[in-house]
């Protein structure tokens, strides 16, 4: 396992997997547009909607990140400081949105804001913008204000878990004596000063990292924009909708420019954001001896009533869209009388597949096939890439290890749509036979998932005590026996987490699948939901069928989430 070939093959396969489609796509787009990627950014205005999309993308991503912090920080603070009953359940409820497929999130928010939904019934009509929201929209002069608010709320809902994952462990495991010591100093007597001069420096990098990651996910949001703010374009959604016409010489050069310039701009922004987050995390390399979270919480005690109400509201906010989506699958609107009735009719339609190319069981089988394929490719490749990096670190070759580490992170700077377009324009136009290959979606899913596998397994490998390896040698085991009997069992919890998350990610992946799935027989659950929602709503069951399909997808994802949570360590934060 330590031979040069053993190291270079998986790394070469992985780099080939992520670089070849992107390089081929770039080559084609440069040829068609006659511009290099940077020039293409400055020619974006040749597409009638591009500049508007760029502007909206930056504004909504920044506002979404700020709103997420505003909602998430108090929750992370309460969760990390106080002794909560059933903290595991609270954490799981607050994390759930982040593992929810974006299509499910979109359906959940539609169920929340739709006519006849809870928000509309209390006078907050974000969908049709009547009443208070309509007045607000008119007074600010912003069209479709309700849709923008819904989008920002959905982004905050989706990314809430990021703030909690980054910030809460830092609060929960910091030894109380640090704060106690600070309180004894003259500057530490005022709570505001403690916040400014103690907690902010302690939590700064986690908060900024959470901001950056929320910004990134909102920047590349597609399903939520498509369904909650359909009048607006982000770079991602515009590329997805228009991208099919790109890369054809002499035809719609503006679209090729949009994809080349848009993807380059998006790639640069994401790389810069990831670089900044990495730098902040590195800056915080000073080591603080952490304590068990139970110990730290015990010293602060139990939450008061206000904090309990706050936490209950947060959990309700996290769960309500999902609950309402499930409810909307059995609540059928009567178009003539505008009343509602309860029925499981939509579920029957969903399972029969009368209105779509594929039925729910067929789409589920497709989704599972792609998810298992993604699991195998991403986990095997991710394992060996992490093993290579770790092995190079151990053999005192930090520069090479760091280079491969950085390269392994590259797909994090690519969105689902970018990867889908990369495969479409890069590989398929060079090798069109792939168009008819059923397993094709495994390729983009694996490209997007492998970096997460590396990020889960690499720290775990670093944590394994070298004593175990030496004990195996002393017992006479050769390197293969040590690998299978010692290393794999030691990594098992992390491998289970990586496998469950890979499958969950693949099941919910929308952007790349939406671009690449060209045959109804290949439809996955998220694409099926989108297909249903795109149909004219003349038939009252269309939306409930989409909700039922999304509910099936949600249940599958949550099952994997529960498996991952059982094995995941909560110390340390991050992913």
């Amino acid at each position, binding site marked *: 396992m330590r031979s040069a070939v053993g190291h270079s093959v998986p790394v070469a396969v992985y780099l080939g997997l992520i670089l070849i489609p992107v390089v081929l796509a770039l080559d084609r787009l440069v040829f068609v547009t006659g511009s290099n990627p940077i020039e293409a950014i400055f020619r974006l205005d040749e597409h009638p909607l591009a500049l508007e999309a760029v502007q909206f993308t930056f504004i909504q991503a920044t506002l979404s990140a700020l709103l997420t912090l505003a909602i998430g920080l108090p929750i992370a603070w309460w969760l990390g400081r106080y002794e909560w009953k059933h903290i595991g359940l609270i954490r799981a409820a607050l994390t759930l949105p982040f593992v929810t497929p974006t299509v499910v999130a979109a359906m959940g928010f539609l169920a929340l804001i739709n006519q006849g939904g809870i928000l509309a019934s209390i006078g907050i009509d974000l969908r049709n913008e009547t009443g208070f929201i309509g007045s607000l929209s008119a007074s600010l002069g912003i069209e479709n204000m309700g849709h923008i608010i819904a989008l920002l709320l959905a982004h905050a809902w989706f990314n809430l878990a990021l703030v909690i994952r980054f910030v809460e462990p830092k609060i929960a495991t910091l030894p109380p004596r640090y704060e106690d010591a600070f309180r004894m100093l003259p500057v530490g007597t005022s709570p505001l000063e403690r916040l400014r001069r103690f907690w902010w420096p302690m939590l700064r990098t986690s908060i900024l990292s959470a901001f950056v990651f929320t910004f990134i996910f909102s920047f590349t949001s597609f399903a939520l924009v498509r369904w909650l703010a359909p009048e607006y374009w982000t770079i991602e959604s515009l590329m997805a909708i228009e991208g099919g016409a790109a890369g054809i010489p002499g035809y719609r050069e503006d679209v090729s420019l949009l994809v080349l310039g848009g993807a380059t701009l998006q790639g640069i922004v994401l790389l810069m954001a990831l670089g900044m987050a990495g730098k902040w995390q590195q800056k915080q390399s000073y080591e603080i001896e952490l304590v068990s979270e139970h110990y730290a919480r015990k010293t602060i005690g139990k939450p008061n009533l206000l904090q309990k109400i706050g936490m209950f509201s947060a959990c309700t906010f996290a769960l309500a869209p999902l609950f309402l989506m499930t409810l909307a699958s059995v609540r059928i609107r009567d178009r003539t009388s505008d009343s509602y009735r309860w029925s499981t009719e939509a579920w029957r339609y969903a399972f029969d597949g009368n209105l779509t190319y594929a039925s729910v069981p067929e789409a589920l089988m497709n989704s599972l096939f792609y998810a298992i394929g993604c699991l195998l490719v991403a986990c095997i490749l991710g394992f060996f890439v992490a093993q290579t990096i770790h092995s190079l670190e151990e053999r005192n070759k930090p520069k090479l290890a760091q280079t491969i580490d950085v390269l392994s992170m590259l797909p994090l700077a690519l969105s689902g749509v970018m990867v889908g377009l990369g495969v479409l324009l890069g590989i398929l136009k060079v090798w069109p036979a792939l168009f008819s290959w059923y397993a094709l979606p495994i390729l983009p899913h694996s490209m997007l998932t492998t970096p997460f596998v590396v990020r889960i397994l690499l720290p775990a490998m670093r944590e394994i005590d070298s004593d175990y390896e*030496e004990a195996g040698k*002393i*017992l*006479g085991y050769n390197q293969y026996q040590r690998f299978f009997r010692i290393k794999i069992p030691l990594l098992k919890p992390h491998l289970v987490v990586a496998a469950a998350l890979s499958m969950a990610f693949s099941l919910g992946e929308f952007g790349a699948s939406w671009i690449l799935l060209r045959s109804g027989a290949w439809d996955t659950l998220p694409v099926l939901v989108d297909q249903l929602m795109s149909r004219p709503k003349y038939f009252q069951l269309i939306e409930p069928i989409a909700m039922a399909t999304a509910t099936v997808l949600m249940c599958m994802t949550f099952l994997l989430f529960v498996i991952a949570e059982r094995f995941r360590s909560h110390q340390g934060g991050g992913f």
Partner: protein
Amino acid sequence: MGLVIDQLNVRFDEHHVIHDLQLELASEEIVAILGPSGCGKTTLLRTIAGLQTQETGIIQLNGVRIEQQSCELRGIGMLFQRPVLFPFKDVLGNILFAYKRKRDWNMDEVNAIMNEMGLEGKEHQTIETLSGGEAQRVVLIRALLTNPNLMLLDEPLSALDVDLRRKIAHEIRSILKSRGIPAIHVTHDPAEAEIIGDRVVHWNELQPGDDDEE
């Protein structure tokens, strides 16, 4: 027969840790090496075991030169300062690591040695529930079941309290003697060295002409 080490040199970059070291062990002999922390005792054991690369020198075990052999082929057992038990297995699972294949399992032998070491009834306990002394006993059983040609004891009792240390030191000596396994025990505790060793040598006696090493 036994162990012969001649002109052994080990270097970490510029630091010459072991300098022309010489040591001979008769078959079935237990030698206790006494020396202060950081003098190179652990490095010596790791080099004999094959976990540490040597610069020059000869290591001969039962008449066979082993210094070029990989660690897993040397047939040496070793107890580290901190007991290394695999967290994903219970006590019995850890002990059965002594056998490479399931078909080699000898449960009569396992049960007998567990009884001898006072671990009967603890087969299915998780390793976190073991005391320090019990954990070292499990590691010792596992090492003995591999039928080693030589046992290396790297201060395995240093984390235990004095009474328990003495008790387990007697047990280790008795079990090694009953099986005729030669051993090198390194420690900085003279009393422990006296209990385990047939012979006690001081670290600086092993490196002639290097009295100022420490």
